[in-house]
C-alpha cells in the first residue's frame, strides 16, 4: 500500500536519509528502531510532507483503491486527506482552538475530500465521545485548547485520539510510547492495537520493546545513519533490547 523507493532527503543541506527502501502492505505493523539521529523521525516527516526537508532522490508510491499515486507530489494536507497520518513525537500546541473544534474541522474536511457526507456538530459530539471513552479520556479534553498545557502523556493520548477519529490508512507513530508511565503506555498500546485493521497499516517508531507487548509487529527494521541496515521479526526487537545496536551496526559495516 506504501512503497518507499530509494528515498534520500536532507535538511539545511545536510543529508539525513541516504536511500531508504521500505514496502508496507495492508494489515501490516512495522517497527522502526535505531539509535538517536539515525533518521527515523525524518522518515515519517518526509512521508507526511514536512516543508523543511528536501527530497534529493527516490519516490514514495501510495497504492489506494487500486490507484497508484505519487505521494511526494502532494501537499501535506492532501496526503492526510488521502489517508496518511503521522503521530508526532512532540505534538504542537495550538492556542485558541479547542480540541473538538479542531477535530471536527479536520474530520469534515477529510470527509468532503473523500466525497463522504460531513457530520453535524451534534453527531460529531457522539462520535467523538465514543472514541474518547475507548482511550479512557475524560470529557474535559473536548473543550481544552489543542495540546495547550497537556502533560506529555496527555499529548500522546491525544495523538492516538486523532488517529482514531480521522481513521487513516497508513500511520507513522513517532515515539508515541516515549514519556509515558506504565498505565498510560497500556492505554496507548491497547488503543493502537484496537485501531489496527486488515485494511490499514501502522509503522511504529520506538526505542523500546515494551510497546510491542500490546501491538505485535510483522517486521522490525533497524535504521542507522540514514539507512535501513537490518530487517527481521519481532525477536529482533528483543535482541536489540538485550545487546544494543553495536553488533548490528558492526555487522552491516563489515558487509559493505
Amino acid at each position, binding site marked *: 500500500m506504501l512503497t518507499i523507493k530509494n528515498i534520500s532527503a536532507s535538511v539545511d543541506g545536510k543529508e539525513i536519509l541516504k536511500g531508504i527502501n521500505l514496502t508496507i502492505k495492508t494489515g501490516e505493523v512495522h517497527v522502526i528502531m535505531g539509535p538517536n539521529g539515525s533518521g527515523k523521525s525524518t522518515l515519517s516527516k518526509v512521508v507526511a510532507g514536512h516543508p*523543511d526537508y528536501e527530497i534529493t532522490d527516490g519516490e514514495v508510491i501510495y497504492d489506494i483503491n487500486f490507484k497508484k499515486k505519487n505521494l511526494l507530489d502532494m*501537499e*501535506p494536507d492532501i496526503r*492526510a486527506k488521502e489517508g496518511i497520518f503521522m503521530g508526532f513525537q512532540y505534538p504542537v500546541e495550538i492556542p485558541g482552538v479547542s480540541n473538538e473544534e479542531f477535530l471536527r*474541522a*479536520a474530520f469534515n474536511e477529510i470527509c468532503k475530500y473523500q466525497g463522504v457526507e460531513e457530520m453535524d456538530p451534534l453527531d460529531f459530539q457522539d462520535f467523538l465521545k465514543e472514541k474518547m471513552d475507548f482511550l479512557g479520556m475524560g470529557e474535559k479534553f473536548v473543550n481544552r485548547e489543542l495540546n495547550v498545557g497537556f502533560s506529555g502523556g496527555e499529548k500522546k493520548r491525544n495523538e492516538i485520539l486523532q488517529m482514531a477519529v480521522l481513521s487513516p490508512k497508513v500511520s507513522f507513530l513517532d515515539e508515541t510510547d516515549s514519556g509515558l508511565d506504565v498505565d498510560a503506555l497500556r492505554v496507548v498500546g491497547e488503543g493502537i492495537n484496537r485501531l489496527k485493521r486488515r485494511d490499514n497499516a501502522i509503522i511504529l517508531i520506538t526505542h523500546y520493546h515494551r510497546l510491542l507487548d500490546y501491538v505485535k509487529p510483522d517486521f522490525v527494521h533497524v535504521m542507522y545513519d540514514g539507512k535501513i541496515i537490518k530487517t527481521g521479526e519481532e525477536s529482533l526487537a528483543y535482541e536489540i533490547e538485550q545487546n544494543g545496536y553495536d553488533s548490528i551496526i558492526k555487522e552491516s559495516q563489515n558487509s559493505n
Partner: protein
Amino acid sequence: MADNEQFLSKDYKYGFTTNIEVDELPKGLNEDIIKAISQKKGEPDFMLNFRLSAFDKWKTMEEPHWADFDYNPIDYQNLKYYSAPKKKEGPKSMDEVDPELLETFEKLGVPIHERARLAGVAIDAVFDSVSVATTHQELLSKHGIIFCPISEAVKKHPELVQKYLGTVVPPTDNFFASLNSAVFSDGSFVYIPKNVRCPMDLSTYFRINASETGQFERTLIIADEGSYVSYIEGCTAPMRDENQLHAAVVELIALKDAEIKYSTVQNWYAGDKNGVGGIYNFVTKRGKCAGSGSKISWTQVEAGSALTWKYPSVILQGDNSIGEFYSVALTNNYMKADTGTKMIHIGKNTKSRIISKGISAEYSTNTYRGLVRIAPSAENARNYSQCDSLLVGDKCSANTFPYLEVKNNSATLEHEATTSKISTDQIFYLNSRGLSTESTISLLINGFCKEVFKELPLEFSVEAVRLLEMRLEGSIG
C-alpha cells in the same frame, strides 16, 4: 508580473474607482472654503460659527507625532475639502439616486436599493463628502428614531445637533478633531428616543472615491434614556498610489440606562505590497456614558489603511456605567497601526473591559496604546484589560503601551498581555491532519480573535474572518 498584479488586485477587491461628475471646491483650506462648505449645505449660523472657531483653533495647533510611525508630511493646502456627486436636489427616494452610485454600492455588497428592505439593516451610504442614500427612514420614524445624514439633521433637528455636537469631542480636542470640526461635510446622525429599542441594526457605509480629497465625516449618535441601538460602520476606498487623508470624528452619547453598541469593520485601501499609497486613517471616536447605568461598547476590526491612529474611548461619567472595547487590528506589508482605547472612570462603580488582539505580518507595525484613568470620584471602579499580539513571520513588530492613572484606592484593575507567533510547525501539524493551509489560518485567526468576533453582529463576524484571511493571504505558509 501579470500574475502578481492579478493577485494584488484580488487582494483588495474594492479598489475600483467610479467615474461620476462631481461638484467640488478648489484645493486649499481657508475661511472662504469653510464658508463655501457651510453655504453648500445651507447650514444655520450656529454651524458656521462652530466651524470657524474650530478652524481658528486648528491654525494654532500642531500635527501630533507621538504615534509609533513616521510618514510623509501632509500638505493641508494641497487637498480638496469638498467633493460630491453632482445632482440638482437631494434624492427624495431611492429611485432618484444616480444609478452609477447604486451600482457602486451594489459592487461593494452594500444594499442601498429598495430591496435592501429585506436585509433588515438600515443603511446610510456616504460617498466622498456627502450622504447619497439612507434606507428605511420611514419605518424608523414610526418609532421616533431619527437616522439621517448629519447635514440634514443640522437643518431639520438643529436643537439636537446644537445641544450635543462637540460635547464629547470638543472642536479643540486635538489637531485632527479640530480639522474635522472645521470642514466635515457629512456623516450619520442617529437619535433614539426614550425607552425605544431600535428594531434593526443601523449602518453607515463610507466610500472615498475622489482623488486628492480628504474625507472628513462626522457621526453623532444619541441614545436617550433607556434606549438601545446597534450601529455598524463599514468603509472602502479605491486603490490609488497617493496617500489619502481620512479624519473622522464619532461622538456617542448614552443617557441614563441607555446602551450603544458600535461596530466597525475598517477596510480602507492599505497601500500596495511596497507600502505605496493607502489611506491615512486619523480618527477620533469617543463615547460618553452620561447617565447612570448606561453602556457603550466599541467593537472594531481594523484591517485596512496604510496608517491607523485611533482610540475609541469611553467617558464613564454616570454611576454604574459600563465601557467596553473589543478590537482586532491586522497589519500587513508596510501598514502601521497605533490603536487602542481610553477608559475614563468618573462615576462610582463604573466598569470597563478592554480586549485587544493585534495581528502583524510582513514588515508591519502594530501598536496597542491604551489609557485607563480612575478619577478621585470613581469609587469602586473596575477595569479588566487583555492585550494579545500574534506575529506572522519575523520581520513585523508588535508593541503594547498600557497607561494607568489611578487616583482612587478602591479601584480594581487587572491587566494581561501575551505575544505569540504562528509557526511553520503549527501549520504543518494542522496540515498533517488534513486541514488545508487556508483552513488552518482561518482556525488559528478565529481562535485568536474569538473573544472579539463574538461581539460582532453575526453577518459581520463572518465577513470579518474572511477579510482577515484575505488580508493575510500569501503571508503564511
